[in-house]
């Protein structure tokens, strides 16, 4: 249902994943995941090794954070994140690159999966693995459905429907076997449910690579599904609809319909955490943009905590005619307010947008064409939500299910009158979610 078809613009698809170096100082944020911020367990002056635990989970829905480098802890203080808000960061001055002894640094593929389910879950939790598709939800929580609910299908999300982004695509080309082993591990945790690796049809090379890896490794019940190209197919609920033809009820979770969705990068991170004892301290990010020369288009394997300014510098600086730099894809990404901000676990791209691409046209009147309602993948009526948000009618907003909005931006993209629908709906959704939350607390 719904969706739009923006131009692919995957300019960086031919750039191999390069290993990015580390600057003199890195800043590791304590709020890198959905849920409670992590609690630092290191003190100023401590020497930390690469992969050493920096912070422990601050609640049930939270995750461990590990040091991406080796060096001395210089400070544990608030620092501005990319939106300009304050968050706790651990500052580390880099000294060499000394890894934790328990981490296996070889590139040899380890096929055999440990038998003990609980031990695997513990390793994923201790590795600080979170969902790397965007929401950064702690993976160990997602892989452990509440009692009474069982997973019937594990979907590995290789849709990468956001224009410009190519990090998942490159991972599928360069590390297909590791991803399949990661998928098999998660399959094991979910009591051997079937597993589907879902890839959009515009990535034939990735489909071929994954199909070959699945055939070579021959784990039971893993297959590759080819999906038609559509945005936002990589959204959890949309993917479940596309693969399993099941719809999640309003306010429900994927596991309610028996589905668990994990990203390609998450599968890779699970592989590293379980088979190599390597916590989540690096991720792949795309540096790209429209009209950006080919030598400035990169896919980098970066250490989490490296400032964006360093990445941009290494990638050849900000290209000419850049009006806006966005963290993430053009549809859901956020513009940088602060380039000194550091990368977090969920960082997926540095996107340069030209002035033509970012220009906003004047808002016209709504002509009731209904295109936004057609485009909305959640079946909402954005024109109505926009009007209610303007009036501040939270009761009616809740009745119109504003809380189901996934902020994909399809409504704004499809509106012929250039009405900034999502811009108005976003704060209204936050307000309604706040009201629902406080009501549940009272109960």
């Amino acid at each position, binding site marked *: 249902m719904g969706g739009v078809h923006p131009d692919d613009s995957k300019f960086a698809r031919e750039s191999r994943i390069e290993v990015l170096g580390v600057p003199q100082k890195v800043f590791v944020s304590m709020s890198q995941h959905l849920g409670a911020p992590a609690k630092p367990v290191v003190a100023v002056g401590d020497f930390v090794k690469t992969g050493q635990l920096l912070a422990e989970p601050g609640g049930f829905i939270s995750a461990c954070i590990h040091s991406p480098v080796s060096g001395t802890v210089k400070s544990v203080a608030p620092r501005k994140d990319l*939106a300009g808000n304050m968050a706790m960061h651990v500052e580390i001055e880099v000294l060499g690159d000394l890894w934790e002894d328990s981490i296996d640094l070889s590139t040899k593929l380890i096929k055999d999966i440990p038998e003990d389910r609980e031990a695997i879950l513990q390793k994923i939790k201790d590795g600080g693995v979170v969902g790397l598709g965007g929401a950064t939800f702690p993976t160990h929580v997602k892989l452990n459905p509440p009692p009474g609910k069982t997973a019937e299908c594990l979907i590995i999300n290789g849709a990468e429907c956001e224009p410009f982004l190519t990090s998942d695509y490159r991972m599928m080309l360069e590390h297909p076997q590791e991803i399949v082993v990661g998928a098999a591990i998660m399959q094991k945790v979910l009591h051997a449910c079937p597993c589907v690796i879902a890839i959009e049809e515009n990535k034939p090379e990735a489909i071929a690579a994954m199909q070959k890896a699945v055939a070579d490794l021959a784990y039971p019940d893993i297959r590759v599904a080819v999906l038609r190209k559509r945005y936002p197919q990589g959204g959890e609920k949309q993917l479940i609809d596309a693969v399993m033809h099941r719809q999640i009820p309003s306010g429900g979770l994927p596991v309610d319909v028996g589905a668990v969705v994990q990203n390609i990068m998450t599968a890779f991170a699970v592989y590293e955490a379980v088979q190599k004892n390597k916590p989540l301290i690096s991720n792949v990010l795309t540096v790209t943009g429209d009209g950006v020369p080919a030598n400035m288009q990169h896919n980098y394997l970066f250490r989490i905590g490296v400032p964006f300014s360093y990445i941009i510098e290494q990638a050849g600086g900000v290209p000419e005619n850049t009006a806006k730099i966005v963290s993430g894809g053009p549809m859901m990404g956020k513009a940088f*307010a602060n380039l000194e901000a550091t990368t977090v676990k969920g960082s997926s791209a540095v996107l340069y947008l030209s002035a033509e691409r970012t220009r906003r046209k004047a808002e016209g009147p709504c002509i009731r064409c209904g295109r936004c309602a057609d485009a909305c993948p959640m079946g909402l009526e954005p024109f109505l939500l926009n009007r209610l948000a303007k009036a501040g009618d939270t009761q009616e907003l809740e009745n119109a299910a504003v809380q189901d909005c996934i902020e994909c931006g399809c409504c704004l993209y499809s509106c012929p009158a250039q009405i900034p629908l999502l811009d*108005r709906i976003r704060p209204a959704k936050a307000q309604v979610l706040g009201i629902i939350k406080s009501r549940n607390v009272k109960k």
Partner: protein
Amino acid sequence: MNSLIWTVIILTVLGCILALVLSLVARRFHVVEDPRIDAIEKALPGANCGGCGFAGCRAFSDAAVKAGNLDGRYCPVGGTPVMREVAAILGVQTEEKAPQVAVVRCNGSFANRPRVNDYDGLKSCKVKAALYAGDTHCPFGCVGCGDCVAACAFGALSLNAETGLPVVDEQKCTACGKCVQACPKHVMELRNKGPRGLRVFVSCINKDKGAVARKACAAACIGCGKCAKVCAHEAITVQDNVAYIDFTKCRLCKKCVAECPTGAIHAVNFPVLPKKEEEKKDE
């Protein structure tokens, strides 16, 4: 001709019957409304601004009469004189409140607070604040899209083009509190108007540490605590790196204004003394 007469007769009879029915229904289902509701509504300013927390003046009157008292019900627009009138109608006591006015607790003018990025999105503070911290290094201050101006039903607020900050017209401000609700950054505050409009307040809510706050804005409160030390009336507290003056304790001595190293504390409506001006120049 005949048909005309019949029409007139039938309509007249029909009219009489219906009138009879209506009058009977009106008598049978007569709602006795307390005349005090009308009286109170008349006494209220009739702005229907919602400053009291009710939908309008009628709703306020209704609630007051139903409850029979004025506990927690206060019309900020009318203030004490109107509330006395209302209390007299109900035959109860009302609380005496000093007249209040909205103040802008932000010094982040274009000159004080350099802009570090451009915002080209929807011109709404609510939307802007939901997206990011604002286009300066200060994540606490005014984001300057004028939601408060739009919320004001009395035309008391305007955006100053030179500073980019909202300005309160004291004559028009009724302290209804709509701007306080509208501001996503909680920059607006209702404070006592003070004797002859004299008042002193900290015009900053930046909770960052001193050095960070100062870097973001030249007139930020850096939480140094000098004002709290110099205050003889214990009116000033410094919490989370920002000072706050309790308007119920402040005696308007203005010692803190002179002491503040960044000029974050504002003294309003005090007569300007020529000597003071010179001192400022010397500094």
